[in-house]
């Protein structure tokens, strides 16, 4: 019974948590470690959840907290190029977008991810990340601004070649 439950939760939430952790940590190995730890805690706690959404939110909260801990203490691979991320084939255009995302500060990446990828509302993100709605709004705003600007700047870089080289 226990074994079946483990398989079920890993299949159900493994990719979701892994994506969040990769985005937060920019390192696939650390992301895997964190995901495994999240599941460990899930199995240890044997918590009762109201529904799947509640369960999912709890898992994301734990993953986020563990990522924060790891970012705080991590000394290896403080920065990683998108090319070094072993996440399989990424079309060039997508890689560029991913790179822009990865360049944001971790706190902003998390908010952007939860809002745009997972579709959480500001109030929900506030509960998941245990920060005020105002903080979520500001991080979203900054993330939106920076993503837009970074993309524009990279376009300008290509143009810049003609005048400087």
């Amino acid at each position, binding site marked *: 019974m226990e074994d079946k439950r*483990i398989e079920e939760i890993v299949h159900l939430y493994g990719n979701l948590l892994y994506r969040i952790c990769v985005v937060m940590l920019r390192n696939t190995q650390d992301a895997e470690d964190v995901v495994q730890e999240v599941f460990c*805690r899930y199995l240890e706690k044997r918590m009762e959840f109201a529904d799947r959404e509640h369960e999912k939110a709890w898992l994301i909260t734990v993953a986020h907290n563990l990522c924060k801990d790891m970012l705080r203490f991590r000394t290896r691979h403080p920065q990683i190029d998108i090319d070094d991320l072993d*996440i399989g084939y990424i079309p060039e255009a997508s890689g*560029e977008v991913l790179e822009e*995302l990865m360049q944001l*500060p971790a706190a902003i990446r998390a908010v952007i991810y939860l809002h745009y990828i997972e579709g959480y509302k500001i109030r929900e993100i506030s509960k998941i990340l245990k920060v005020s709605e105002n903080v979520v709004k500001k991080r979203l705003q900054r993330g939106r601004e920076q993503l837009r600007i970074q993309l524009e700047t990279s376009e300008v*870089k290509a143009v810049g070649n003609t005048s400087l080289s």
Partner: protein
Amino acid sequence: MKKEDLIGAVSYIALEDERQDKMISALKAQMHQSNLGFKGRKNYRNAGTKAAVAALGLVLIGGMSLSAYALATSQLKERMEKMTPNTISELEEQVQSAEVQADSFNRPYSDTEQERMETLYVEYMGGRFPQGELTQVSSEDEAAAYEEEGKICFFPTLSRFYLPLQREMTDEEILEVLDYSTKRDYALIAAAAQEETQQMETQQVERSAAVAITEDQAIEIAAARAAELGLNLDGFTLNHYFDEGSERKDRYGGVARYGVNWSNIVSHTYYYFYINAADGSILDEDYNEYSRYNRKYKETAIQRNIDNGGISLEEAIKFARLRMEESGLDPDGYYCSTWFTENYSQEFDGKSYYQVTWTDEENRKFYVFFLDGKDGTILEEH
């Protein structure tokens, strides 16, 4: 960037099936170990996680879960709250200083003990408490002596329960185990809460000390700077926010700051100012490169640098080029973009600096050099 692009890009991040299977196997192995006394934890877990594991101890004892919410039972709550700060501190210390990550037992519970424990747990929650307390020993030898006498005891250093080997536990003994585990659980939660409160209070004090100007004043400072730069903000939307900074030093030294920006989505022009909340100084200012004001600002700032004896943009590019060549890279294969930052920034001890970026768009590689505006010394590169 479109939202769909973002979703599409992230969708390529996936845990491979093989990795998933490995993870499942590892989790199964860990859970099986835990059911036998939870001896096989991973080493990398830090001390802070001991709280969670210790809380798990009770779960394993009774096959049921106890959380802080359980303390809602008034009699139990009262019992826990009667614990002195010293007792709480000692219990927490026991867990944190234990040599192992979780509880273990000298023998498994029998089926009948398990059943009685479940019943007694409910009664315990309702106010049936033990007459005495679980005996604690200070060495394995002492524990062995108790074991030989058929008495129950607990050795905190190894977080190990020694149950009577020749007989089943009495109700009193089961209640003592439950009571000890509950108190320990409570102590860990209380200690964590206290630590959190202290941290919040400290942060609050630090934040108060770090914030000396209001958001309105920050806007005024940014507006004054915009005027100084000759920026026409008609038709621009003003946005502003407070950023409390972070423990981790970022490019602004982690200080509390205000972000003030003006944007014009029609002309794709944005001006950003970051104001130090402690003293109103400008930490950074930024402009998107579509702005003609931006280019004008850059040219003017570089000219000021040259007038003050600094190097020109062309010289900065030359130094960066040499550095690329020293590294065995051919700069001609890269796009070059530049920026100049005047000495208002906290970066590089307030030095003015050039940023020269060589980008290989095709292979998505880039090299960034920060050069001292004065003499072209490489301040940072990555």
